[in-house]
């Protein structure tokens, strides 16, 4: 656990560091994009996928139909961050569940790595292996960082009908916290309860009846200084 400054190139900045190389950035989702720049936005149907959660089990997005699901794309298991994003979400899980939401983490690590990592950090939610073909799901969500060879740090809150309600891409070294997720889940819940109180509408219609524009997009926290202690902690 050494506290040292990461090299400047790895520090989060307003622009993806690798874009400075000057190679043209291709469309998100292609195999050559250098840095994730355009996550799928609110109002888009979330692409379905099925990924291994353990060496012999898989999880599909469609398994969660009927309830909100939070996708947390993250760069890698074992990354040396003390105020770790997944450790934080692990502690906030019961709040997510209060909104009926399930959380899954997704990275390009293989299922054996996920199993060991989840056990080591006592994580109580599934980690999915976007391992083969590498990063395919992250690419479809527009959050793969080709320059790094792993997913960017991105969050999606998807409603019970499989529609993206909120998305957020964080600079790779910046833990986005959980406040944005909670705000998105609350806006989903309140949209649902508004409709519950309208005659002739049922709560189950809430997601489709309310366009995803109810989501309040949050400004990316790219304005924070390059290094805060927690980002370089292990």
């Amino acid at each position, binding site marked *: *656990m050494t*506290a040292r400054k990461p090299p400047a190139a790895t520090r989060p900045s307003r622009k993806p560091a690798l874009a400075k190389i000057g190679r043209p950035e291709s469309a998100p989702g292609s195999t050559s994009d250098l840095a994730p720049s355009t996550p799928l936005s609110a109002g888009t149907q979330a692409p379905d996928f099925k990924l291994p959660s353990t060496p012999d089990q898989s999880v599909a997005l469609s398994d969660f139909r009927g309830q909100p699901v939070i996708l947390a794309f993250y760069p890698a298991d074992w990354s040396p*961050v*003390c*105020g*770790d*994003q997944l*450790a*934080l979400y*692990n*502690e*906030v899980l019961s*709040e997510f569940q209060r909104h009926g939401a399930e959380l899954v983490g997704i990275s390009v690590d293989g299922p054996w790595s996920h199993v060991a990592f989840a056990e080591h*950090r*006592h*994580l*109580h939610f599934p980690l999915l292996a976007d391992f083969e073909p590498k990063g395919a799901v992250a690419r479809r969500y527009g959050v793969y960082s080709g320059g790094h060879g792993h997913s960017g740090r991105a969050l999606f809150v998807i409603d019970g009908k499989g529609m993206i309600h909120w998305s957020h891409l964080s600079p790779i070294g910046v*833990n*986005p*916290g*959980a*406040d944005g997720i*909670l705000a998105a889940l609350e806006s989903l819940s309140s949209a649902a309860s508004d409709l519950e109180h309208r005659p002739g509408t049922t709560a189950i219609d809430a997601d489709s009846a309310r366009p995803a524009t109810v989501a309040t997009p949050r400004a990316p*926290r790219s*304005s*924070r*200084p390059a*290094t*805060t*202690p*927690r980002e370089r*902690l292990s």
Partner: protein
Amino acid sequence: MSPLTPPVSSHDHIHGDASAAVTLVEYGDYECPYCGKAHPLVKALQRHFGKRMRFVFRNFPLTQVHQHAEHAAEAAEAAEAAGQFWPMHDVIFEHQAALDDSDLVRYAEGLGLPGAVIVDALAGQKHASRIRQDFLSGVRSGVNGTPSFFINGQKYEGEYDLASMTEAIEAEMTIGHR
């Protein structure tokens, strides 16, 4: 950027004067090594600013990563009843390597508290709800790791060293006096 939610109130552990120009809030975990390192830093800031700054501590235990964090927070909260929150807070941060239940009881007894107060609090998780409230207020306020600081309600994003934090607090005082 999320401001501190809820704002500091009498519900909080407040060290210092209500008339202080600046309120420094820390979200911390008693077992987090970086909170341990920040502890003398906070002390130095308190010495430097004296009555011009008050300090507030809110719990942010990462219980799945730090197995002693929750009980340490319970013990500090239990000491509050005897008006010994801050002494207990200090002794815990000064002994982060030894935070078993028996250690916590020993520290409380060292402050003149009956050990039973701590034993009961730990067994009954008497302060669990308050600790969770602190934690969730931190999540709401954009805390993403420990320690996290807020200066007059705004999240401090600078370096965690005496010069940087002193400068940020001075700047806040200047704004306050404009």
